[in-house]
């Protein structure tokens, strides 16, 4: 039994040891920073995945590049700028607000406001109508 538990523990240890391309982080804070940064960068190959999750070879390479730049003391903004200069704002999951992205940023809000206006109007009209006894025949 003991041996069995040990074996299971070994298997689990192995699975952790072979997690995706382990990078030599110097401490937990650096690792967290790396995770947070690669999570807001888009993988160019599988475009609906972020850089942190993607297993595409180019993503592995770009993760390594991000790590190398972090090691050489580059700020998050500088690293993002490096990638944007090569791959456009498209690499950012959080693109900057500018003329080309105005619709992207504000259209959803505008649509919600329009929807809220419509709902508000309907409710106001309904509340003005006299309350009538519910018709038992009416099909809700």
């Amino acid at each position: 039994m003991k041996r069995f538990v040990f074996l299971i523990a070994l298997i689990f240890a192995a699975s952790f040891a072979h997690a995706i391309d382990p990078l030599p982080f110097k401490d937990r804070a650096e690792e967290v920073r790396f995770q947070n940064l690669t999570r807001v960068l888009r993988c160019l190959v599988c475009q609906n995945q972020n850089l942190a999750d993607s297993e595409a070879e180019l993503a592995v390479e770009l993760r390594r590049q991000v790590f190398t730049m972090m090691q050489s003391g580059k700020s998050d903004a500088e690293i993002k700028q490096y990638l944007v200069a090569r791959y456009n704002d498209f690499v950012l999951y959080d693109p900057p607000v500018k003329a080309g992205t105005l619709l992207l940023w504000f259209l959803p809000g505008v649509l919600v406001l329009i929807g809220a206006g419509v709902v508000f109007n309907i409710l106001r009209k309904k509340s003005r109508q006299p309350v009538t006894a519910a018709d038992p025949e009416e099909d809700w």
Partner: protein
Amino acid sequence: MTRLIPLLVFIALVGLLAFGIEWNKHHEMFEVPSPLIAKPAPQFTLPLLYEPDKKLGRNDLLGEPYILNVFGSWCPTCQDEHPILTRAVKPLGIKLIGLDWRDAPADGKRWLAQFGNPYDAVLTDPDGHAGIDFGVYMAPESFLIDAQGVVRYKRIGMFTPELIQSELMPQLKTLGQPVTAK
């Protein structure tokens, strides 16, 4: 009038969807427009595939326009594009530089030996950094770079005879003229 609102909303929605369909006919969803267009090509100095002791860089290539075609022996679409490069791009008379990207030089050589070498020079970029500087993410990709070293045009994916007619040829005609930023 208020009765018409749902109809108008419906028509607007249909319009939006129709626009989406029409847009996708002319645009590839995966294509990320390159920020390099009308800007100087990134610096690179890379070993030649067939003479690894010699290097060729951006500055060596100034003075004559060229197409930088990114390929790799691991890339099936490059294989599809290969005969088109040989038959349709090479005859245009423009210098054609190959970039064997993220590929072992031995594999690149074997690939070119098998299919033929349409390139005037082949550079190797085994670790892929030069390709990343060019914003390459999906081989094959091609860059048209003018005599001043400015990127004029980028094609993501393979060239087809139609694209050579509709996109590459007009770009080649404008090579003598100053760059117009898009």
